[in-house]
């Protein structure tokens, strides 16, 4: 199947290096300490952060750092074909773990000993790149909860189809069988914190694809930074002195 037309357009009309439209909104769940909605094209996720709060299970308490927990779940209506999956299947467990590890690496956990931070991500619509969208939403929610972090983490995926590197794969491209690289970076520190790839790819091409994904992450980071700055300004002027 042809995923990139001779004119260099993808199935949804994007150019190979073009990202889908991204949109973020802070403060979606009123009761949570921090929350955000993040959309990449048709992919839409909600993240809510509770904490830092007293550790619920005393045996998990750590005296030198905060306990970070994460749960990922997909709504039944989130995929094109309706599916009915119980919570906590292997895929969700794996994604929960990935998100937790990625976020834990950038939270300054040593500042909040004896406490726990819960991150809940809920996929409302899945159209490829849910992992990336979840991480971006979680970053926003953590920042909204006022949790100190080393850096923002942002994530984006890239793939390789029809011998063209493609940025930000949607579901159709993702399931095409080509390589799918999900990357997470710390934009300020300029470091990669998350890298996952399936299927095979020659090393020199991997480099290109990775570079493309990094560009995507940076674009997301700029957008997230803008949203956060706007939100901070708004909170400040609304509060008044």
């Amino acid at each position: 199947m042809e995923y990139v037309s001779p004119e260099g357009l993808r199935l949804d009309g994007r150019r190979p290096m073009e990202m889908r439209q991204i949109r973020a909104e802070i403060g979606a769940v009123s009761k949570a300490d921090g929350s955000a909605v993040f959309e990449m094209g048709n992919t839409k996720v909600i993240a809510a952060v509770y904490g830092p709060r007293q550790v619920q299970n005393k045996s998990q308490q750590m005296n030198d750092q905060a306990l970070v927990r994460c749960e990922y779940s997909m709504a039944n209506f989130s995929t094109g074909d309706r599916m009915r999956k119980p919570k906590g299947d292997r895929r969700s467990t794996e994604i929960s773990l990935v998100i937790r590890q990625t976020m834990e690496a950038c939270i300054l956990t040593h500042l909040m000993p004896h406490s726990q931070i819960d991150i809940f991500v809920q996929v409302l619509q899945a159209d490829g790149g849910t992992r990336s969208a979840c991480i971006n939403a979680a970053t926003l929610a953590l920042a909204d909860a006022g949790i100190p972090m080393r850096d923002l983490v942002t994530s984006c995926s890239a793939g390789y189809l029809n011998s063209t590197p493609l940025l930000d794969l949607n579901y159709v491209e993702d399931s095409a069988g080509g390589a799918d690289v999900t990357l997470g970076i710390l934009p300020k520190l300029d470091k990669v914190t998350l890298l996952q790839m399936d299927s095979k790819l020659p090393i020199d091409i991997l480099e290109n694809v990775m570079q493309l994904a990094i560009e995507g992450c940076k674009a997301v980071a700029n957008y997230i930074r803008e949203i956060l700055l706007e939100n901070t300004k708004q909170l400040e002027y609304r509060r008044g002195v």
Partner: protein
Amino acid sequence: MVGLSLGEQHFIQGGIAQDLRCDGRKRLAYRPISVETGVIPQANGSARVRMGATDVIASVKAELGKPSLLQPNKGKVSIYIDCSSTAEPAFEGRGGDELSAELSTALQRCLLGGKSGAGAGIDLSSLVVIDGKICWDLYIDGLVVSSDGNLLDALGAAIKAALSNTGIPRVHVAAGASSDEKPELDVSDEEFLQFDTSSVPVIITLTKVGKHYIVDATSEEESQMSSAVSISVNRQRSICGITKRGGAGLDPSIILDMISVAQHVSEQLINKLDSEIASAEAGDDES
């Protein structure tokens, strides 16, 4: 989930007795309701309903299936509710399962009628494409995004709104297919059938606290309930289903009293919802 001190409990109970609740509402008043439709583009129909801090999403997906042998001339509808852990950390893992199951069955009871499908709020026979062979299966999924009491009514309202938002593709059956062959179907991408949602009931939960009962309880008020009765009422003021929850016993005469109150309240709620849905749909078309 909600822990209140005796002093606060007493204050809430007193407020209900005096017909002035903590947020200033009377016993039979609702919180502000807002409706958004078409929030899940991938679904055939969807809606998001907010009542105060309670926030739920309902989606309707239609798939072609086979009618059951017992009711060859009716489509199938299933309702499933999920409580997201974003709403409450306690819903993490299997924590929300019990509540999800309770809500799902209560909604099925209130909206779908009996086993035979008789008395359902949704006209099941309109879902049939070919008698006994092909019908539409409707999957209604609800998701609780944020919870502050009265989830059942909010979900009921969201489902009603989602159904009004639902367009089911028109199916053309190729003529001449003989009865034993698999008929050829042409599912249209452009023509959609709208649902008649005028008969879909709304759910009104009356929560009994002390001697009185209230509508649209917040989770703090729900923590004080002795029992609650959920009554689904349609536009014709007929009762489509009743569920009683909570441990305390109720005098049968009180239940009858509650039903008549619910019938009265339903009229306002249906009108309010219909106007909200209409304005949401209008806003939807614009954008």
